[in-house]
């Protein structure tokens, strides 16, 4: 089909008349995700096999997280994204705001080993508005040549400019950064969110960040982050583990991951409320979160699958690079999306202000 499928019903009729195709609305899906290596992994393991088996073409759109665009689409009634890849904090919020269709986990296929979906998905990766796909992690990564002698290995080293000189890469959003600042300041991982909830704790986190503020370069997207590290523009950066791993294994960049106190999070597929292609969108979600596509995805990006039944299908060499590998997962902290939903607004704004002040 050549003609892009319009989402207005009268136009859909026209579209039917022109193409003579059955159920025009379901011939194409638009899926929004985070771009770069990550979207590439979804294309190879999920979009392309789905197109091959159903004939539905998939248009891939990049976005950078957050609910702004989605909110605008849903509230104005001009929904152009059918499925979105979202992080838990956005899923929680968007679900409460009515931006996503509800998904019944009983409708999801069982794992390839026969275990029903409800038991197959790891805890927390099934949500009333979304289905978990990958476990990814906020880690620190460094450029190996930037530290010829001692290598940084702990969260504390990120804030230690004396022993580990060099510029730091920080994201333009505060997630995981504030947690690390407190941990580096001596707060135990289990107490981080409790301390961060107090005004003194928050001040303490920002005071710790102040110590590296004038040595920091700020990035917006995962692709920028990798570029800064690869160009030697920053020596040590907050990072997403999968993108760093891809740069190491696919592009032979001299980067290293620090797994110490990684903060792991999950991504989900959610169906946008009011999409014209709702059934096809659900079909896609069911397909893409199956045992095999999730296992396949690990070949292209080092994020762990949300299904337990996918684990045995992963080659050992790849499994060792995932955040969920036992050696990496040692003292991992779970990203507390509910906490961020409750406190995020004020903190995001303060972080944005801190950044430009």
């Amino acid at each position, binding site marked *: 089909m050549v003609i892009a499928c319009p989402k207005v019903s009268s136009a859909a009729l026209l579209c039917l008349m022109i193409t003579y195709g059955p159920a025009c609305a379901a011939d194409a899906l638009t899926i929004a995700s985070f771009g770069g290596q990550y979207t590439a992994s979804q294309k190879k393991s999920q979009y392309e096999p789905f197109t091959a088996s159903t004939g539905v073409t998939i248009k891939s759109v990049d976005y950078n997280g*957050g609910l702004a665009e989605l909110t605008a689409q849903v509230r104005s009634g001009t929904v152009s994204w059918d499925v979105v890849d979202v992080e838990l904090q956005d899923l929680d*919020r968007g679900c*409460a705001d009515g931006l996503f269709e509800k998904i019944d986990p009983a409708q999801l296929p069982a794992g390839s080993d026969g275990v029903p979906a409800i038991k197959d998905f790891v805890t927390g990766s099934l949500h009333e508005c979304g289905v978990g796909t990958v476990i990814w992690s906020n880690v620190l990564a460094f450029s190996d040549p930037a530290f010829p002698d001692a290598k940084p290995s702990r969260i504390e080293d990120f804030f230690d400019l004396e022993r580990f000189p060099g510029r730091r890469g920080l994201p333009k959003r505060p997630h995981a950064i504030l947690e690390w600042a407190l941990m580096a300041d001596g707060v135990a991982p289990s107490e981080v969110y409790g301390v961060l909830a107090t005004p003194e704790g928050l001040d303490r986190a920002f005071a710790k960040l102040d110590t590296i503020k004038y040595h920091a370069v700020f990035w*917006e997207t995962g692709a920028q982050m990798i570029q800064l590290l690869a160009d030697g*523009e920053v020596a040590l950066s907050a990072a997403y583990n999968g993108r760093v791993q891809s740069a190491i294994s696919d592009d032979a960049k001299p980067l290293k991951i620090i797994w110490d106190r990684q903060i792991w999070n999950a991504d989900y597929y959610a169906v946008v409320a009011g999409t014209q292609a709702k059934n096809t969108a659900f079909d896609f979600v069911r397909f893409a979160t199956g045992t095999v596509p999730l296992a396949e995805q690990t070949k292209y990006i080092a994020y762990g699958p949300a299904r337990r039944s996918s684990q045995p299908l992963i080659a050992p060499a790849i499994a060792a690079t995932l955040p969920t590998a036992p050696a990496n997962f040692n003292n991992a902290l779970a990203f507390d999306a509910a906490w961020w939903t409750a406190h995020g*607004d004020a903190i995001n704004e303060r972080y944005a*202000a801190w*950044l*430009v002040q």
Partner: protein
Amino acid sequence: MNAVSPSRAGWALVLPLVAFIVIAFLAPIATMLLRSVHDPEIADLMPRTRQTLARWDGIGVPQMATEAVTADLREASATNQIGRLAQRLNRERNGLRVLIDVTARHLEREPDTKLSRIDPGWSDPALWQILARVTSPWTGQHLLNALDLTVTPDGAMVRQEEARRLYVDLFLRTAWVAALVTLICALLGYPYAYAYAMAAAGPSLRALLLFLVLLPFWTSLLVRATAWIVLLQRRGVINEGLLAAGLIGETGRLDLIYNMTGTIIVMVHVLLPFFVLPLYSVMAGLPTSYVRASASLGAHPVRTFARVYLPLTYPGVAAGGLLVFILSLGYYVTPALVGGRTGQLISNQIAFHMQRSLNWGLAAALGTLLLLAVLLLALTLPRLAERGGLRA
């Protein structure tokens, strides 16, 4: 072209243009202006509360309004709007998101519980004052916030707490960057336009100069920014060159990008044609006889330039300068790509509130202030320039 009296057919011809301007230009600006002072989101989500609190005297806890709030919250839960309401109220006071979520969930289970028994937060008179203020659809709050001011629950206007003060500084920074970029464009652009105008004799040189000034126009903004990153970064072409030439040491690499310097360099590059082209068109139209007359009367070339040529080109300088200055005020993509932390301008904050914090009211208020500043400049500067003798 001769002036033709507009016939009906003539008007019909410009109608598409008028419609385009209204739809693509005037309507969005009007919406933005309105949004900066009109925020009916909470009023729409809490219609009963709004009605009741409009009659409230503002003292203590209004018992009469608790039922209205209960009914509004129940309805918002039923229509899936509770998250939106909680988020919007949380902006007025941090912590209200949790209060609204908890209360709404409780009401779903036990619809008739009294609010004060669900959460003691509802017994706080300050909360009700906030509710009374925000359920009114007209608000000056966003404009105040855009000026780093805020209103306390009892109605006094005070400065924002220090950690949240940034917009006034950013407006000033933006104006400073715009002025600096304009000045650099003038210093670089004037000789360039002069050379271009004087190169009338050599058509190939002239074509080359025109090509060079137009080249940036034909290249995507993103490509240009990326090219500058390659040149300016710490391991970029310039730093490596300086290092190889022994002018700097390994530790002395220059920070030319991801800061204010980067923003200014790239903005000058992008905006230079906007200075050169209007200036050139003025220079090209100048009769050479004035300069010759001055020379034949015995004036030194420097004097001829300063007293005759330069004043004649003032209109071009003013036009180019104003264009560059106003474009700089709204610059957004370039600072976002190469500005790092210190090179961010006010437009980046507007984008942040549009795309991230979803605080469209504040984004509109910041946009309104920026628009006012530009209008003021566009209206006053040409007049000042005229009065100051900057005329042909």
